[in-house]
């Protein structure tokens, strides 16, 4: 519940599609077939580049999967009406979240194993349709509630947010001005820029987006699809702007945070409220809540299936077929391996999802984007546009970007919650203080939901790794390429001609 700052995410995600449209989509479609590794390894030594591409595909996918599963967990806790402290069928809210994460994980594995690329495509079409209808209906109801007056909606949202007019201004959550502490203010502002950079550069490096480009018959259709995506996604984000402020105005931030400290369930809570108001009392509320939750589940399932598919096909096509078997295999074996890989990746995501269930979904998404932008994007862009790029550049760029992004997160306040000069102490609730094992008046804690420790302070004060890891990713890729002598002008000519003309593509 951070008001205006939520808008920043939408804008980053949307503008990011221009990077995909102008620099990546058509060229990748023309020069690859199944995975990101196809394009990266086009003119390089297969084994090292494909291994690196596969590793980073899996890591990015797992972070993104975590986000989806944590979201699903919060949603179920809301649906069952369990707030922390209550129980349902003998389950506490925490147990219910864990059960959901396991169930969603199992469902997604089944789905990908049976449905494959076609099944995933269909579920994505259904989801996109439901999501748009749901968002339009809710936005209309919010608009009716406020007689189509945006200004009144904003005013009400600010009033009910408990934060007053600041709710509408940038900087409630990111880039805070911390009075009397210039170090902390600088850190917080740089963290905001870091988030912005990751959002705009991440999309074009996300594996499940990249494999989408391969499913279209030619580059013209790839271009059309991306433009359609930009139109639909842009419209959707404009609607969510109304929904986000609507949730704050009609439900109130305090009520949302009471249900879920990560505030991941604002939209379903709004649906319930709108239903109560327009569809007749508590029943109407329950009906609309159920519908919107169903849409949310369809969305989660679709994204999760896409990610599992992208990463399991990378294991099968890059690691198994081209590294282990050195290209001597057939498609049937690849599909079998992909199915086993889907099991493995699903299982890992379930286990990690249980540990990460207290985290904010938006943050996990931001990390996935930051890794994609640091590890994948430099290698993709250099491969497509830089003649001098080579195997060492690709390998250094991918591992360098990947390791620096993950390392920054592991050393960040998300993992180590202690207060320090640059990370001021937070006010603790009784429950948080108990969880951390400190007195409620303690000034040792900056982030009470930190994963490992609430009192040890983080070596790196940024939560968003992008500002550090994206330049490092590009630097590693460039230095790697320049220090190796390998270059293959003929293969680059082939890549360049094929990527621009579509000659010889599948």
């Amino acid at each position, binding site marked *: 519940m951070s008001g205006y700052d939520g808008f920043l995410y939408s*804008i980053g995600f949307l503008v990011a599609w221009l990077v995909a*449209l102008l620099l990546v989509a058509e060229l990748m479609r023309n020069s690859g077939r199944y995975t990101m590794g196809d394009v990266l390894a086009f003119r390089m030594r297969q084994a090292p580049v494909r291994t690196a591409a596969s590793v980073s595909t899996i890591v990015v996918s797992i972070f993104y999967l975590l986000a989806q599963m944590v979201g699903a967990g919060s949603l179920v806790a809301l649906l069952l009406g369990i707030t922390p402290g209550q129980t349902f069928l003998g389950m506490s809210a925490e147990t219910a979240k864990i059960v959901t994460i396991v169930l969603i994980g199992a469902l997604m594995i089944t789905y990908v194993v049976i449905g494959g690329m076609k099944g995933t495509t269909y579920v994505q079409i259904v989801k996109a349709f439901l999501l748009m209808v749901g968002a339009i209906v809710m936005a209309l109801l919010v608009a009716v509630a406020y007689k189509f007056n945006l200004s009144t909606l904003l005013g009400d949202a600010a009033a009910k947010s408990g934060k007053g007019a600041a709710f509408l201004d940038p900087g409630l959550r990111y880039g805070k001005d911390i009075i009397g502490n210039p170090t902390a203010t600088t850190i917080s502002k740089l963290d905001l820029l870091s988030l912005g950079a990751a959002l705009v550069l991440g999309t074009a490096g996300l594996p499940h987006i990249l494999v989408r480009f391969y499913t279209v018959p030619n580059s*013209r259709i790839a*271009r059309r699809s991306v433009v359609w995506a930009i139109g639909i996604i842009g419209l959707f984000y404009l609607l969510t702007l109304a929904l986000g402020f609507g949730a704050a105005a009609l439900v109130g931030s305090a009520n949302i945070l009471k249900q879920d400290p990560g505030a991941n369930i604002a939209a379903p809570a709004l649906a319930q409220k709108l239903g109560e108001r327009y569809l007749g009392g508590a029943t109407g509320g329950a009906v609309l809540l159920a519908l919107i939750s169903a849409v949310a589940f369809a969305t989660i399932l679709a994204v999760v299936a896409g990610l599992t598919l992208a990463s399991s096909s990378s294991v099968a096509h890059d690691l198994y077929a081209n590294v282990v078997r050195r290209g001597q295999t057939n498609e049937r074996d690849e599909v079998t391996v992909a199915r086993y890989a889907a099991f493995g990746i699903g299982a890992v995501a379930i286990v990690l999802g249980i540990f990460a269930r207290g985290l904010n979904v938006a943050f996990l998404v931001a990390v996935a984007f930051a890794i994609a932008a640091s590890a994948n994007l430099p290698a993709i862009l250099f491969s497509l546009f830089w003649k001098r790029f080579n195997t060492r550049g690709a390998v250094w760029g991918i591992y360098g970007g990947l390791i620096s992004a993950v390392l920054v997160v592991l050393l960040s306040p998300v993992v180590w919650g202690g207060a320090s000069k640059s990370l001021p102490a937070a006010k603790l609730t009784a429950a948080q203080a108990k969880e951390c094992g400190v007195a409620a008046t303690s000034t040792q804690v900056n982030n009470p939901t930190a994963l490992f420790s609430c009192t040890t302070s983080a070596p790196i004060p940024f939560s968003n790794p992008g500002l550090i890891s994206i330049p490092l990713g590009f630097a590693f890729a460039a230095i790697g390429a320049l220090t190796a002598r390998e270059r293959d002008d003929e293969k680059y000519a082939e890549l360049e001609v094929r990527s*621009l*003309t579509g000659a010889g593509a599948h």
Partner: protein
Amino acid sequence: MATDSPTAPPVRPEQGRYLAVEQSAEFGALRKTFRGFVFPVTVVFLVWYALYVIMSAYARGFMSHKLVGNINVALVFGLLQFVSTFLIAWAYTRFADRRLDPSADRLRHEIEGGAS
């Protein structure tokens, strides 16, 4: 599936052809037209977006300035990012359809016609 996938790279007799095409005048012009559009436009929209994020972080007073009712500069600036994104997507499609596709199609037919 006109040729093989990039997974198994046997040396093909026509491989030198790509080098020849790459150095041809028509391909050079195509590449120049393509890069002449996408590189500057990418710089423009990234700078425009960076300006928005940087102002959100550092120009708080200006961004919080209310224009009409509760609608402030930050909101309008954000909405302008949507407008610019839609416009660039539309402009690129128009550009690519008219200036890139005809030449790309011609070159592809030349290459594939000769190879089969």
